């Protein structure tokens, strides 16, 4: 039947569009987490950075009228939270997971508190490229409305992969993450490297947050994030600590998240909440299927397996 074909097609188009739209913040958060974990630390607090970034980005965009200034400040707010995480973690007998959870709560709480007055006003949003103007199918046109941050993500991904392989700093970050002994023996300052990596990772997560408030959904409210910051941690594992894989995995998660709304738009409403749970189910399924009693995860930074100090 023609109608069915059409709705299948529109579901696919909507999922593709959603993969890009919903996936963009995942790209930034997961690249940020990837960088932090490569240095041998896990930052579970990125959810806090994300929400903080969303609030800060929106507020600055509203106050200054420049969404890009908003993005920058969102990043800086994330870097500041990253700095706090790194500082706390390098105190004796402090555990990075616990600090991460504390900072997740602190970041979201702080953002809610400071963002109260920005819930109503309308801030200028980020722009996009319309790559679908040649088509007259409105759904396709909507799906091909490519946001600028996605393009930044496309550039950032290979840049980070390149960074790890071809730059001095990339090699140093990996050394510190693989073996604190080796890093000490080479005379690298482990705490400094981890601090910078956590700050840079936090910056990216903040930028990812600004996307939520400045592009899609495109306004600031307290229910903005649905755990993207936490899921990014699973995503990095799934991506085997490889930036390029992080990019694809983000699109996959984005597509999964777009599945519910896409089905709803063609009239399938029965399992709406079930389909909305798709990314979470996907996260669980991935974690279960990639873990094994007998195998070590390939690509995992050595210091996350056998923490040195």
């Amino acid at each position, binding site marked *: 039947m023609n109608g069915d074909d059409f709705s299948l097609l529109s579901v696919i188009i909507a999922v593709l569009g959603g993969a890009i739209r919903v996936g963009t913040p995942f790209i930034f958060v997961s690249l940020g987490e990837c960088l932090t974990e490569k240095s041998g630390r896990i930052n579970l607090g990125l959810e806090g950075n994300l929400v903080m970034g969303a609030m800060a980005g929106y507020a600055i965009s509203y106050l200054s009228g420049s969404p890009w200034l908003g993005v920058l400040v969102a990043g800086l707010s994330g870097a500041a939270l990253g700095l706090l995480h790194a500082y706390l973690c390098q105190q004796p007998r402090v555990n990075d997971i616990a600090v991460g959870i504390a900072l997740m709560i602190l970041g979201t709480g702080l953002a809610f508190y400071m963002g109260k007055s920005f819930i109503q006003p309308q801030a200028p949003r980020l722009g996009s490229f319309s790559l679908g103007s040649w088509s007259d199918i409105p759904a396709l046109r909507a799906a091909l409305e490519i946001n600028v941050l996605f393009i930044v993500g496309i550039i950032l991904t290979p840049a980070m992969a390149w960074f790890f392989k071809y730059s001095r700093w990339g090699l140093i970050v990996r050394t510190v993450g693989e*073996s604190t002994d080796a890093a000490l023996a080479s005379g690298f300052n482990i705490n400094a490297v981890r601090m910078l990596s956590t700050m840079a990772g936090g910056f990216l997560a903040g930028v990812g947050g600004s996307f939520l408030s400045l592009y899609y959904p495109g306004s600031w409210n307290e229910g903005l994030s649905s755990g993207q910051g936490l899921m990014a941690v699973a995503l990095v594992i799934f991506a085997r600590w490889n930036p390029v894989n992080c990019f694809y995995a983000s699109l996959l998660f984005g597509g999964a998240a777009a599945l519910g709304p896409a089905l709803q738009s063609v009239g399938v409403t029965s399992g709406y909440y079930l389909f909305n749970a798709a990314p979470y189910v996907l996260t669980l399924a991935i974690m279960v299927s990639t873990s094994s009693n007998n195998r070590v995860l390939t690509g995992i930074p050595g210091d996350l397996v056998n923490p040195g100090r």
Partner: protein
Amino acid sequence: MTIPSPYLLEALIIRKVFDDFVALDDVSLKLARGSFHALLGENGAGKSTLVKCIMGYYHPDGGNILLDNKEVSINNPRDAHNLGIGMVYQHFTLIPNMTVAENLILARPHLPAMIDWKSELAELETRMATMPFKVPLQSNINTLSAGEKQKVEIIKQLLLDSRLLILDEPTSVLTPNEADEVLGQIKGMVDDNGLSVLIITHKFREVTGFADEVTVLRRGKYVGSCKVAGTETKTMAAMMMGSEVIAEPLARAETKQNETLLEIDQLSAESSSGETAIESLSLNVRAGEIVGIAGVSGNGQRELVEVLAGQRDIANGSIRLHGETFDATRRQARLHNLHCLPEEPLKNACVPNMSVAENMAFNNFDIPPYALKGLLINRGRIRERARTLITQFKVRTETEDTRIGALSGGNVQRAVLARELSGDIDVLVVANPVFGLDFKAVEEIHNRIMAARNNGTAVLLVSEDLDELLELSDCIHVISGGKLVYQTTPSEADRSVIGQHMAGH
């Protein structure tokens, strides 16, 4: 004009205190230019601590370091590298998830901000031509054998144009042939290129074969130094051990070897990376015998021991203890008195941040008398038993409450051995039990294993040290590629034949 000092390096009255434990008590070491200097001492004597102080890895609490008769301040290993001092650490510091080339580049003092791999690789290739041994530049470190890794470690230091090369037990992971090759090449560089070497070793064979002078430490104190020529090994051993007596090897007693206690039947298992590590391996061990497994490391030994310790799933086949299928539960291990001493016990059989007493109680903290009604732990009892074991097995630790990770390698080994060798043992699995131990500890541990055998324990001894296997085993198997490929007995054994099978021919 002043006469140039004959010494390249002088470490004078170095003191190092950990918490309140004095690891180095005003120790001095003088190394003549162009010499091959050996640093000797029993486990925990402070050898590694001393060289780490020289490298700036630790900051000494007292003393000074002179290089070319000038006082230098070395705050971290990078400073040492800049002064031309390179060190190969006791434990590998290569990064397993990186290639050989990446590891070598990382050691350079001035890494370029961007790495042009093409020209870097070309340059490494040319420099490699002048090196005593070859290593595959593009391979990942985790695919290399222990011997190859050690060569990479040494090349890494030589590429830095080190004048002084410090080696902390560089040969403990090597076969005797590999050790001779590596040390021979380094000796060549000492004679021809004016390199100076400071080597820590437990093997007198290497001292008499390669070294010119020795310095001896005992329990954190300087004992003396002398020329190797004209000094008997007996004298050196006496300097190391002081008045302590070294145990005589325990004789192999006649045992009634009838009952088969451990049966491994067509066993297969996977490695951590998911490849087949053991393939259809079958083996029996009877009461009162030691079955040895020889082989180059990485041929399935680690996985075999892990399966027996319950740390790895069986892919296929079965294990039987007393004829009953073993499902690797705690209950069964206890029922059949199965005990395991895996290699690198600190990593594989200890919780480094728990105390010695807690680590010693892993096998029985949950049963009476250590746990009341299986619920409440009686810490007093546990510590009391630990104190007994510490005395019995001569574990050198401050107290039973010290965290086990702070003990020297040999003492961790003793502590775990004390845990596994106390009480009734029917089946004992041991892997490389004397790795990195001094000769006194080696003798002691060998005697314990032999005593267990003489008492009717079935012992499976997995070792990379052929001498150890020939000394202890009743029967030797060679493992290669996860399969047993050859069987012999010590009396009939021909080293070269065993060697060929180990190499997979």
